[in-house]
C-alpha cells in the first residue's frame, strides 16, 4: 500500500520524538549504570545491547527483529 508521506517529511515530523525517545533510553541506561550492585551476568543487559545493534543497523523490520530478540524460542515440534 503506498505511504502518502515521503521519507524526508516523515523525518521532519518524527525527528524530535525520536530524539526524545533516545534520550529517555540513554537516561534509563545511565540510571541503571549509576545504581549500586553488579549486573555483569544479567542476560537482559545483553539483550538490550543486541537490540541497540539492531537499531543501528540499516536492515529493515527493526521492530520485528527486536520483538523476536525478546521472544521465547518456538519449538515447531511442541505438539
Amino acid at each position: 500500500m503506498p505511504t502518502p508521506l515521503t521519507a524526508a517529511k516523515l523525518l521532519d515530523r518524527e525527528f524530535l520524538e525520536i530524539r526524545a525517545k533516545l534520550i529517555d533510553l540513554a537516561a534509563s541506561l545511565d540510571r541503571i549504570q549509576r545504581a549500586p550492585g553488579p549486573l555483569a551476568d544479567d542476560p537482559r543487559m545483553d539483550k538490550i545491547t543486541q537490540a541497540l545493534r539492531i537499531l543501528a543497523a540499516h536492515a529493515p523490520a527493526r521492530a520485528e527483529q527486536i520483538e523476536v530478540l525478546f521472544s521465547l524460542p518456538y519449538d515447531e515440534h511442541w505438539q
Partner: protein
Amino acid sequence: MYFFDPHIHLASRTTDDMQLMAQMDCVAVGEPAFWMGFDRSGTNSFYDYFRQLTEWEPLRAARYGIRHYAWVGINAKEAEDVGFAREVIAHLPEFLDKPDVLGIGEIGLHKCTINEVATLEALIDLALTRGEQMLFHTPHLEHKLKGTRMILDILRNDSRMDRSRVCIDHCEEHTIRAALDEGYWAGITLYPVTKATPQRAADMIEIYGPDQILVNSSADWDPSDPLAVPKFIAVMRGRGHAESLIRQIVYDNPLKFFTQSRGFTFKPLE
C-alpha cells in the same frame, strides 16, 4: 467518523469513558470475557460475570448510544485448572444463545502450558461444534511469538475451521504476517507498553494492507485508553490516508467480521 472498538473491557471502565467514546462517534463495541485482575474463586463467579457482559453492560453502553456485543469464554490466565475450566465451559452455551453475543472469546494462551492448551482445545471444539466465531488472545511480551505460533498450530489441526470467522488478536510486527497469511483476521491492539501504538498500527497497515485487520483499544482496568481508536484515526489522517481507507479499518471491517455471527444485529449507519 463512526467507529467500532471491537475489543474493549467496558466492565472495568466508567460511564465517563463511554460518554467520551460516544462523543468521538463510537457506535459499537465488542467486549470479550477476560481476566478481571484476580483469579475467580468458582464457577458462579464466571456465571455472574457472563450475566454482567450480556445483560448489564449493554444497558450501560446503550445510554450513550453505543451498541454492545459480548464474547463469552474462559480466558487464558484462568485456564490452568482444566477441571475447573470445563465446569465454566459447561455454562457457555446458555450465554452463546443470548442476543448480541458474538461467539467464544477471548480465549488463547498465557504461559503456553500443556493445561492451557487442553482448555483451549475444549473451547475450540465447543465453538466449532456450535458454529461460533472465535476471538483469540495471544500472549504478552516474550510469550507472544511462541504462543501465537502454537495457537495457529492448534487451529490448523481442525478441518472444521472457517478462518474468515476467526480473529487472532493483539498482533504485533512479529506475529501479524502469520495470522494474515493463514487467512485469519488480525487484531492490532493499541495499548501502552505491552502492545502496539497507533503509529505502529498504521505502519503495519501500510505494509500489509487494510483487509481483514481490526484495530482496538482493549482498554481495561490497567492504564489504557478507551479513545485509542480515534487516536489511530487521527494518525492515519495525519499521514494523508484516504477517509475511505480509514473508515474501512475502523467501521467496515468490524461490521464485516461481526456480521458473520448469528448473535449480531446492527443497522449500518449511513
